[in-house]
């Protein structure tokens, strides 16, 4: 318990310890802490920025969606009107085609009728001539009355 040179030794030791702590211990720790604080602050700021960006993006995506919906509605409306138009056109062309076919058929029928009538006329003429021949067997010379027969034939 005597005061002696230990006092000086302890003071020197104390100064050395403080010096070492100040030089090699304190700065690295506080620097790391400061840097981490900065990093965290940066991270928080980035997070905040990200959030506002997300909000903006959400808003924009909603707008785009809205626009797309509008466009889709427009396209559908256009398609519908176009479809109606096509149907109308098809109806018209079908009607036309039908009429054309009908007319063609009518003309053909008429022709057929005409042809049948001609054939019928020939047959009737032939029948008439044959009948007349049977009746007039003898008197009628085919060669002599060919002219007569021809005129009858054309009258039929």
């Amino acid at each position, binding site marked *: 318990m005597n005061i002696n040179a230990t006092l000086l*030794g302890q003071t020197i030791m104390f100064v050395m310890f403080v010096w070492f702590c100040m030089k090699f211990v304190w*700065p690295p720790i506080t620097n790391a802490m400061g840097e981490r604080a900065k990093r965290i602050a940066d991270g928080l700021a980035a997070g905040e920025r990200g959030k506002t960006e997300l909000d903006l993006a959400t808003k924009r995506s909603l707008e785009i969606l809205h626009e797309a919906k509008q466009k889709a509605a427009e396209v559908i409306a256009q398609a519908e009107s176009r479809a109606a138009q096509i149907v109308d056109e098809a109806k018209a062309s079908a009607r036309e085609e039908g009429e054309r076919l009908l007319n063609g058929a009518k003309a053909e029928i008429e022709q057929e009728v005409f042809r049948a009538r001609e054939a019928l006329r020939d047959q009737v003429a032939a029948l008439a001539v044959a009948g007349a021949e049977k009746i007039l067997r003898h008197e009628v010379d085919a060669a002599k009355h060919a002219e007569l027969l021809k005129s009858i034939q054309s009258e039929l």
Partner: protein
Amino acid sequence: MASETLTSSEYIRHHLQNLTFGHLPNGSWGAAQTADQAREMGFWALNLDTFFVSFILGALFLFIFRKAAKGATAGVPSGLQNFAEWVVEFIESSVRGSFSGKNDLIAPLALTIFFWIFLMNWMDLIPVDYLHVLANAAGLPFFKSVPTTDPNATFGMSIGVFLLVLYYSVKVKGVGGFIGELTLQPFGKFGLPFNLFLEGVNLISKPVSLALRLFGNMYAGEMIFILIALLPFWLQWTLSLPWAIFHILIVTLQAFIFMTLTIVYLDMAHQEHH
């Protein structure tokens, strides 16, 4: 526990004697074998136990914190770094609370003071006989394991703090300013001798109170542990356990008080009042 060959007072005295190395009466250098020899060595002797234990503890503190400092990253901190940062943050908030100026020395100084004293005080919680008996077995006549129960250690630190107070007083206020502060207040220049006496006492009381407060607390605590150790071994825990638990508080508190007062004194040294 008291060994049978010793009386109680011898046991206590034996425990309170430092291992002093110095000039022996027979002319050679060596460790004092008795308290009288230690006293006769005068000033030029060294308390080896105080010196040795405080050095080991200080080095341990610096080693641990240096390790933490080396591995310190701004990323996710490891366990040791977490601990170091927790301590550093605690010290920093203490410094910020009491020290108004700006000085890069104060915080590391406070950290060193706090942790070193804390570790030295902590030696008090090692049962009083352990290191003592070990040292005696190793042939050392005395061994006092708690450096802060040696006034040399506490005064050594407080003198270091006192020198810093003087240095910063002169540095911040100038020699004239510092002398003026000592002589021209509180009663103006006509009360000069009285002022000098008052301020001188005020100044000197700083290191003295720092050192004696720590020494007194730890010495008393150690003394009570030694007294408890005189009881029969099966009874000791009834007193030593509560006292040890209470002592955990004192150990921390005294380290904290020493640190805080150092910060406050240095803050006063930095301030130009009046």
